[in-house]
């Protein structure tokens, strides 16, 4: 199976090599989830490698706004616009000729421009122009069949919610579905990408974190734990905390070779227990390793010193 590389950091590894050539992919997500930047990043990376792209805007975002907002990214290249990266306003054509002429309009544009990649942004806007689901379904089916014959890899961008991916016809016909979403947190926004479907290739499932940086999209793939069975020796030896009552309650301490989770609210003494456990071992000549994700070494030292 021939593929196109996305060129986005870590995405080709998640896709086990890239997106299958001539596939039809839906990039879905809420407004602001990063869909347009995601697809433009893929397209610019490919256009720089000799591909030709036809980018059809509808009524969600005008060409002017697209270019204005995207030129700040490192992947954007002014020189390619108009030559290998062609913007066309499909919305204008549809408004003039009507929804029943969309397929003909797109086919005419494909014949004229001969792109290897086609983007329709937003495809949801086209869906909204059709009065009935049946007519729209036929249109999507014909579009998918026609574009693969013209050797075009397609990206349909749309403001879809996750639930819609199970019900709307474009998702049944699509070869690939990317779903982008975010989660607001107190200090920053977390962005996630999930691949819901990808015909013709295996891929790393689950949610992958991503970031929108000045360079473009950067993905941090979901960590897959090593499936190899962990083998280690167990003994009946006990390792104590050096805290009399606690060690008695534990029958002499924690069993060697086991993993213990110390949990509790802020200030309940989790860190102190862990430090005390290591200190007790160190006193017996055992080596301990403390990995801290929050408190720096100096603070740990100071806390331990104050606790004697």
């Amino acid at each position, binding site marked *: 199976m*021939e593929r196109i590389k996305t060129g986005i950091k870590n995405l080709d590894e998640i896709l086990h090599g890239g997106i299958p050539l001539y596939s039809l992919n839906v990039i879905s997500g809420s407004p602001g989830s990063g869909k347009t930047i995601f697809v433009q990043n893929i397209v610019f990376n490919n256009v720089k490698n000799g591909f030709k792209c036809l980018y059809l805007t509808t009524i969600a975002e005008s060409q002017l706004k697209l270019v204005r907002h995207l030129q700040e990214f490192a992947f954007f290249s002014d020189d390619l616009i108009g030559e290998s990266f062609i913007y066309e306003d499909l919305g204008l054509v549809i408004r003039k000729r009507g929804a029943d002429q969309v397929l003909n309009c797109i086919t005419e544009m494909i014949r004229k421009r001969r792109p290897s990649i086609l983007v329709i942004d937003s495809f949801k806007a086209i869906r909204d122009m059709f009065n009935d689901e049946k007519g729209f379904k036929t249109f999507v089916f014909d579009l998918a069949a026609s574009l*693969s*014959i013209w*050797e075009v890899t397609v990206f349909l961008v749309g403001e879809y919610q996750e639930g819609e991916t199970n019900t709307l016809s474009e998702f049944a016909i699509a070869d690939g579905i990317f779903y982008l979403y975010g989660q607001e947190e107190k200090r920053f926004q977390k962005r996630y990408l999930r691949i819901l479907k990808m015909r013709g290739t295996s891929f790393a499932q689950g949610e992958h974190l991503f970031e929108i940086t000045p360079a473009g999209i950067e993905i941090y793939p979901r960590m897959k734990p090593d499936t190899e069975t962990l083998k280690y020796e167990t003994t009946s030896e006990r390792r104590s905390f050096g805290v009399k009552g606690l060690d008695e309650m534990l029958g002499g301490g924690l069993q060697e070779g086991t993993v213990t989770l110390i949990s509790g609210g802020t200030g309940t003494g989790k860190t102190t227990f862990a430090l005390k456990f290591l200190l007790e071992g160190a006193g017996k000549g055992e080596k301990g390793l403390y990995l801290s994700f929050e408190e720096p070494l100096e603070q740990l030292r100071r806390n331990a010193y104050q606790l004697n």
Partner: protein
Amino acid sequence: MSDLAEKIARYERFLNEVWSSSVKYLGLFSVQLLMERVVFDVATEYREIELVKWDEKGISCEEVAQVLQEEPNFPVDDMFMKFITKYVEVLAKLIGSEKAERIMEKIKEETIKEE
């Protein structure tokens, strides 16, 4: 039947073989789209290829034969060879070059047997 008409009839038989074999992999709808695309491409050099007609049953070169009757020096072989080459090229990209080659070999064998 004139030599030219016979030649075009041979191409018609060959194209129909290719058509039937492609339907197996692409389905009738996509094969019709593929025909449309290849005709569009070849027509940039030979407008006469637009006279090739097709429906659910297959391909007809009857109109080509009629029109070219008046033009004995028309490069029929070049036009059809370009059509077939382009068709197979796109087919190979869609279903893989191994399958496309297998289809072509099988058709060639059958055509040789018939002749």
